């Protein structure tokens, strides 16, 4: 479904990603784990078109999307829930969610999707008319996820969804991700919270210093010595 082939990418003269390859199949939950600064965020930004690869190719559903702008990849069905939530602070929760349904294929269903999404996040129903900036961190993360779902994506990418959240909220976020996956949406998660993520995923990749060093089924990675030592502290 999504295939990244030998991609190099970076900002300015700084190279972040080197020779990255990965693939995600329909319905899978795939995770990319790695330390802070390994290039995880850059990888998601490259897939979504915010960063242009220098070499290599990215294909989605068999079509080349390497050179597409970010707003075009959304129209193809690729949605990124960015790190740090990135809500529209002076817009209401409702308007934030409606912006999620801006892309062409989601527009006509926006009312239905809003209804479905609010079923999943009943707390947000009470907050619809509040400014996004007035919400707590956990609620803002829920808005960010709900806004991503409003695009009715084929693949939903999460960048550090648990960052800066209290442990109990982190568990809620992973429950929601499991629910998203259960609806048949393909999920790609990038996380520092390695244990939680590998528990939730089917397969995983380990990214270190901008290179893929390891890939396997999530269960196997949880048992892998290198992963256990470097990321789980066991």
């Amino acid at each position: 479904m999504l295939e990244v082939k030998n991609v190099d990418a970076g900002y300015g003269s700084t190279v972040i990603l080197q020779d990255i390859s990965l693939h995600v199949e329909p319905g899978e939950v795939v995770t990319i784990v790695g330390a802070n600064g390994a290039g995880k965020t850059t990888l998601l930004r490259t897939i979504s078109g915010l960063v242009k690869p220098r070499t290599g190719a990215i294909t989605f559903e068999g079509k080349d999307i390497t050179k597409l702008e970010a707003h075009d990849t959304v129209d193809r069905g690729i949605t990124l829930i960015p790190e740090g939530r990135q809500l529209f602070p002076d817009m209401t929760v409702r308007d934030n969610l409606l912006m999620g349904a801006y892309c062409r294929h989601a527009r006509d269903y926006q009312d239905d999707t809003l209804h479905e999404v609010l079923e999943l996040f009943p707390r947000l129903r009470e907050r619809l008319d509040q400014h996004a900036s007035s919400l707590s961190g956990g609620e803002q993360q829920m808005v960010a996820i709900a806004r991503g779902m409003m695009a009715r994506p084929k693949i939903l990418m999460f960048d550090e969804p648990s960052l800066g959240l209290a442990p109990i909220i982190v568990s809620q976020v992973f429950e929601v991700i499991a629910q998203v996956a259960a609806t048949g949406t393909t999920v790609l998660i990038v996380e520092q919270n390695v244990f939680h993520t590998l528990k939730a995923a089917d397969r995983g990749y380990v990214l270190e210093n901008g290179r893929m060093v390891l890939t396997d089924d999530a269960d196997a990675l949880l048992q892998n010595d290198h992963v256990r030592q470097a990321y789980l502290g066991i």
Partner: protein
Amino acid sequence: MDTFLQIVANGLMLGGLFAIVAVGLTLIFGIVKVINFAHGEFLMVGMYLTFLLSTGLDVHPYLTAAAVAPALFVLGALTQRLLIQPLMSARDEHVQIFATVGLSTALMNLALLVFGADIANTPAHGVRSQVMLGEVRILTGQLWVFGAAILLVIALQLFMKKTRTGRAIRATAQNRAAARLMGINDKFIYVLTFGLGAACVGLGSSLIAPLYPTSPTIGTYFVLIAFVCVVLGGLGSIPGAFFGALVIGLVDALSGFYIGSDLREAVVFTIFLLILILKPSGLFGTRMTQSHVSP
């Protein structure tokens, strides 16, 4: 008392006029984050177009707005697409501002070349006739400008809050990177917004032309005052620009009468300096975010 009421009325009418120029300026600043120093020259271009169309076709100058506003939309959109956008990746954002200063000078000199330094009088078609509102005399044209300014502010607010495109414009201003992730083409939004801001002043120019003689430098006077209104109202706030304009109109009229007409601008710009020192966010200002600098 009658004199005072008359001066207040004059001030409010002047405020309406400033408002219709200031609204487009604050729209462009609030969304594209570029201070358009060529805004006054957009007004000047619009006034010459109004003059040419209304004399050439012998129609009421207000009717020409149907052509002048779209023409200014195109001028604004092209300015963003051909001048500002290529400079958006420049390291120093001030480059864009200097570019609009250059455009301002270029348009002014182009007008001098085409029309000469003489003034052009757009036919009034009755809008310079007076009406009495109680004890107060007002030009019908001033009332139209005032009404149009109110309608423009309301229409823009509704557009920004209630339509999908309006929401996309606000979203782009608040967080450009996130807006792109929603599928919003940010470059298109900037072109559209610059065009809209210019179209607002285009509408204004067709209303102002029958009241003021048109000259290549007419824009300079209006745009300096419009800047003060925009800053007073809070940079980027559309209702703010409107109420700021009313305040400045009143200050202009009252100080012109009670202090001396030579000192009107001194008073207005003293207020401008005081706002900058005491309350730089203005009456309706919100905190400024730096979202526009993210990639």
